[in-house]
């Protein structure tokens, strides 16, 4: 064993850092095809994240709550600024916007069912509102996107909130993309496109061009829906401090900030990995913006982009978010990147061969864009989509959301809070200098915040 370890270290086989096997593969592929890589999911590189923070549990100076007995509230209200009917959620964990088109109708139904059972919301996507999702989801957020595919006043009125999408964390500055193999006749009809064409949607809204126009656009959406529904504004994380201030200025009830770890169903790899800032840094800037405008508590903040665990949720809330939104974690709960799919009898059926067919394996798959999802989630294929049954998917997602919520309340109680929204920045310390600087939280065991006092 020692010998083979040493042989790996021979300088005749020394791997380059700058031209490692992955970079070589990238260059060879580019040379062979003359095309950039397109893939799904979010940034794969390691960036400072919530893992780099830890909580200071209660001890001598703070009083904890009993973990199993005492109540810890998780109720979350969004849209209190102007809407006559704010959104009321049982937990501060929501399901992020993902389109019908990217996902099958079965998946959209599963999301709605699970969200309704745990008392949270789901969000439409670039493909418009499906009846499956409206009927299954008690609280449904309807996106107003640059493409305006299927956008119509009837769906606007049957939504519970409206989200004006400026950008998303995986590709701030880019529009949607749905390759032809996923544009089946129903998807095509909902998007007013010929079936089978590659759909590359607009990156700019067609009828407004800046924050002052957006004031009037938001006003129009409020007029059409008689000022009932909360209006969210979603931005991909880049110049977050200024973007959040402008969104508040434009009249948003709720701001959604999506960091660079946020997912997509199809985007250029160079875009996913190299445009946008980490969720951790964006969250801090968003909270700074709210505080700078004295809007904390008036305008609510939802953070998304790489939220996976109850600990991530707790840290996001402690840093100042009102709620989180999860896309990729939700799909993984349904079975994304799982070895198997589950048939109607509850049997696990191996998907290994189907992963191989698209050149990957469970655990590495990011092939949402191909429409050949081996577990039947990111597909419009009639056979593949049967692999995700709404009932089974909903049960798994409900379990996942409940787990996150239990973890969240466990941490909150340990910090002495009887309401998860009482978690605060002071409860956190950072493990790395980078995270300390980005999150504006002291390095553990010190009072040092790198760059403190500088914006």
């Amino acid at each position, binding site marked *: 064993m020692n010998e083979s370890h040493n042989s790996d270290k021979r300088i005749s086989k020394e791997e380059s850092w700058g031209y490692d096997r992955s970079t070589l593969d990238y260059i060879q592929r580019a040379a062979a*095809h*003359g*095309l950039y890589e*397109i893939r799904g999911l979010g940034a794969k590189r390691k960036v400072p994240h919530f893992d780099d923070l830890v909580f200071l549990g209660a001890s001598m100076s703070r009083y904890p709550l009993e973990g199993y007995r005492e109540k810890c509230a998780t109720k979350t209200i969004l849209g209190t600024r102007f809407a006559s009917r704010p959104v009321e959620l049982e937990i501060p964990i929501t399901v992020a916007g993902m389109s019908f088109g990217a996902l099958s109708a079965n998946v959209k139904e599963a999301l709605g069912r699970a969200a309704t059972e745990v008392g949270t919301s789901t969000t439409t996507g670039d493909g418009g509102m499906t009846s499956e999702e409206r009927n299954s989801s008690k609280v449904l957020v309807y996106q107003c996107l640059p*493409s*305006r595919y299927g*956008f*119509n*006043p*009837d769906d*606007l009125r049957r939504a519970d909130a409206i989200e004006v999408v400026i950008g998303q964390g995986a590709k701030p500055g880019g529009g949607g993309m749905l*390759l*032809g193999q996923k544009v089946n006749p129903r998807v095509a009809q909902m*998007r*007013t*496109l*010929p079936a089978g*064409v*590659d759909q*590359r949607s*607009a990156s700019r809204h*067609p*009828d*407004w061009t800046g924050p002052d*126009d957006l004031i*009037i*656009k938001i*006003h*129009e959406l409020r*007029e*059409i*829906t*008689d*000022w009932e529904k909360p209006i969210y504004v979603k931005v991909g994380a880049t110049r977050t401090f200024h973007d959040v201030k402008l969104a508040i200025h434009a009249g948003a009830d709720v701001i959604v900030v999506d960091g660079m770890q946020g997912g997509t169903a199809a985007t250029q790899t160079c875009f996913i990995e190299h445009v946008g800032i980490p969720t951790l840094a964006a969250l801090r800037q968003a909270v700074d913006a709210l505080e700078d405008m004295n809007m904390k508590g008036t305008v609510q903040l939802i953070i998304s982009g790489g939220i996976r665990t109850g600990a991530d949720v707790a840290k996001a809330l402690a840093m100042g978010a009102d709620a989180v939104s999860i896309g990729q974690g939700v799909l993984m709960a349904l079975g994304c990147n799982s070895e198997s799919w589950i048939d109607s009898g509850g049997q696990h059926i191996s998907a290994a061969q189907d992963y191989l067919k*698209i050149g990957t394996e469970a655990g590495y798959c990011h*092939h949402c*864009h*191909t429409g050949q999802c081996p577990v039947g989630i990111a597909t419009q294929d009639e056979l593949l989509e049967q692999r995700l049954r709404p009932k089974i998917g909903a049960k798994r997602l409900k379990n996942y959301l409940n787990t996150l919520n239990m973890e969240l309340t466990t941490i909150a109680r340990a910090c002495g809070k009887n309401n998860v929204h009482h978690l605060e920045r002071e409860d956190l310390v950072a493990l790395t200098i980078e995270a300390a600087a980005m999150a504006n939280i002291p390095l553990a065991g010190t009072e040092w915040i790198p760059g403190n006092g500088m914006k």
Partner: protein
Amino acid sequence: MENIKFDLQTTSVREINKFLHHEIAEGTVPRIIIEHPDGAHNIAAGLNVNCEVEIRGHVGYYAAGMNQHASVLIAGNAGTGVAENMMNGRVHVRGFASNSAGASAHGGLLIVDGDAGLRCGISLKGGDIVVGGSVGSFSAFMAQAGRMVICGNAGDALGDSLYEAVVYVKGHIKSLGADARIEDMTADDHQALESLLNQAGVSYSMHRPSDFKRIASARNLYHWNADANQEY
């Protein structure tokens, strides 16, 4: 049917829109007159009943936005996004229209007697637009379905990234956008044009379909890179 009059000097846009959304009895087609709009935004947005609205003056952004059933006459100029995302019905601007007129309209007919600004008919999704004057640059950008008739001239990049929408232009086209091309007029095009000009009103009867050019998509952008050996 009697006329119902509102004066925006004494009544707010909110009050008028609330009335239009909720107070019009089914089965009636009332005529609503709105005076002194003075450039106010979002007038008559979200009309979901059959009624006739006449706005006597200039309007701001998104007038008659998302109209579903109404017939709206704007006796003046219109700001950005007039009749944006219209589903059905009719919106007629007597004067000029600013940018993004009829943006993403899914249905209905928008008529602009004067000129329209930039991005007229952007993301059009099945609606029809007739412009008596000229249109600005980037008109019919990414237009997916529907028809646009331009009786004057068109600016730069007309019909950039067009899908299935068709544009008819009588005057000069400064430049075509990516993937847009001029095609021969067919008998169907003549018929469609004649019908649209007729619907637009008597003042449009002076235009002859044979004087128009047809602009449609060359469909070279329908697939991301058809020449490449795509391995996903």
